[in-house]
């Protein structure tokens, strides 16, 4: 037997035992973005924090499984789930029909409206198509907000950014006239010193076809058992006050939205 073959056999044997060990411990790997405060964010020392993270931890406690977190760029988060890099996405992912073709969603775990922000001296009056005609709008790419902006603001130039941080930078230095994102994300940013340049123009009435019923947890297609477990856990933390505790840590109002 050649050395290469021997090494390959040993490696696969090691992988097998590793797989068995993981199955026994029942570790759930959760994928998140880590660049979307206050929902999920990487701190300077590399810790993941935020509403999504706390909710995910509470759900894992409820489901009695051990959870680990993986930070993954937004653009590749669904392919990474499909490739098995993690088992569920808890990253403020809006439930949309296109995504639901590729992944299975739990029920929503929060639902907040989108909004528009602009510099303090901006002449933008509202959030309609006419108000934003001729303006440049910055949005995070591959999001429902991006889809909404390109559909609704056809008289404006839409610029796609990889993360929220980059459009915030460009709004502050004036490369874009306005930005479109979730209201809680914008409010969170405007409250920081970096967001001092800018103000909230107003909330957008969500378009159910584009924005969907809210943010849910995504799992691989066919992983129905995990969906059921998550749904039960969401209901449980809503009922036992754990959700409210986390909610109040980050927001002044209930982000869950109406019962759907």
């Amino acid at each position, binding site marked *: 037997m050649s050395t290469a073959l021997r090494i390959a056999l040993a490696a696969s044997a090691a992988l097998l035992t590793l797989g068995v060990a993981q199955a026994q411990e029942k570790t759930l790997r959760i994928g998140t973005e880590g660049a979307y405060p206050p929902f999920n964010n990487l701190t300077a020392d590399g810790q993941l924090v935020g509403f999504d993270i706390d909710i995910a931890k509470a759900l894992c406690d409820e489901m009695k499984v051990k959870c680990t977190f993986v930070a993954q760029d937004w*653009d590749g988060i*669904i*392919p990474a789930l499909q490739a098995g890099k993690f088992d569920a996405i808890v990253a403020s992912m809006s439930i949309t029909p*296109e*995504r639901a*073709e*590729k992944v299975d969603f739990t029920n929503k775990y929060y639902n907040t409206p989108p909004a528009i922000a602009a510099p303090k001296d901006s002449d933008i009056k509202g959030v309609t198509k006419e108000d934003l005609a001729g303006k440049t709008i*910055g949005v995070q*790419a*591959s999001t429902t907000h*991006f*889809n909404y902006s390109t559909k609704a603001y056809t008289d404006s130039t839409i*610029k*796609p*950014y*990889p993360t929220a941080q*980059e459009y915030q*930078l*460009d709004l502050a*230095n*004036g*490369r874009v006239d306005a930005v479109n994102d979730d209201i809680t994300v914008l409010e969170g940013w405007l409250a920081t010193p970096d967001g001092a340049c800018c103000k909230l123009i107003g909330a957008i009435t969500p378009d159910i076809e584009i924005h969907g019923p809210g943010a849910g947890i995504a799992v691989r297609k066919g992983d129905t058992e995990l969906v059921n477990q998550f749904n039960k856990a969401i209901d449980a933390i809503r009922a036992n006050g754990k959700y409210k505790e986390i909610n109040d840590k980050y927001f002044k109002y209930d982000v869950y939205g109406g019962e759907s």
Partner: protein
Amino acid sequence: MSAAAADVATKVEKPPAIPHGWPRQRILGYALVCMWIAFLAGIAAYLIVAWNGELFAKYAPSYVTGLGVTLLLVAISIVLGAILSVPIAYARMSKNRFLSGLAYAYVYFFRGTPLLAQTFLVYYGVGSFRPQLDMIGLWGFFREAFNCAIFAFSLNTAAYQAEILRGAIESVPRGQWEGAASLGLHKLQTMWKIILPQALIVALRPYGNEIILMIKGSAIVAIITVYDLMGITKLTYSRTFDFQSYVWAAIIYLIIVETLRHAVEWIERRITIHLQR
């Protein structure tokens, strides 16, 4: 002298005969070629299976637009870089210590740092000096992501092209300069009529490589909000979650690079006719 040369000549051995049968290398070679063929057939099969006429009709026009942006970006950057590379190459070869040091530092910086970092530095770095730029009236230029990309790419490729130019000029034997001087030709004339024509033959391949590298490198502008081919691809993928959007982009890049490679080979064949034996 001639005896020594003859000595060397006798020591040169015939190349080994081509082995018959199936030596290990040949088996490995055939196996690798088969693997490649299987890989390409796999991609072709995937594209046929995944073919979606509706998707194609919807996104093909934007791919064409994106391709246009990529080509325009690279073309402008390469031309500006070529213009900029002349004084840099000159300074690099200069006997003036200060001048050559400055050019060396420039080349050192732009070749030693990633293009991505340079593009980010220009786009977001310049963005944070908006008040100062407003004052000197340059903000209008740097406001546009496309201009920032051109700026960063031109500076980057200028560094590489300057080195290509310098290397090529220095590859021309000194005797050519001396011969021209003995004929009483002016330095500029020597450069233009004798040195450059010979140097550019040497430089052609590296120039071709540099253009190819720029085309592939230009894919990073997608993250500073320019809708180039890669930007369009990402957008398409985010709308459809269909993996073939990336396969198509790869195929388009491959076609451009392949076309360029053949163009460079054709030019080389044309301009080296006098060297062929």
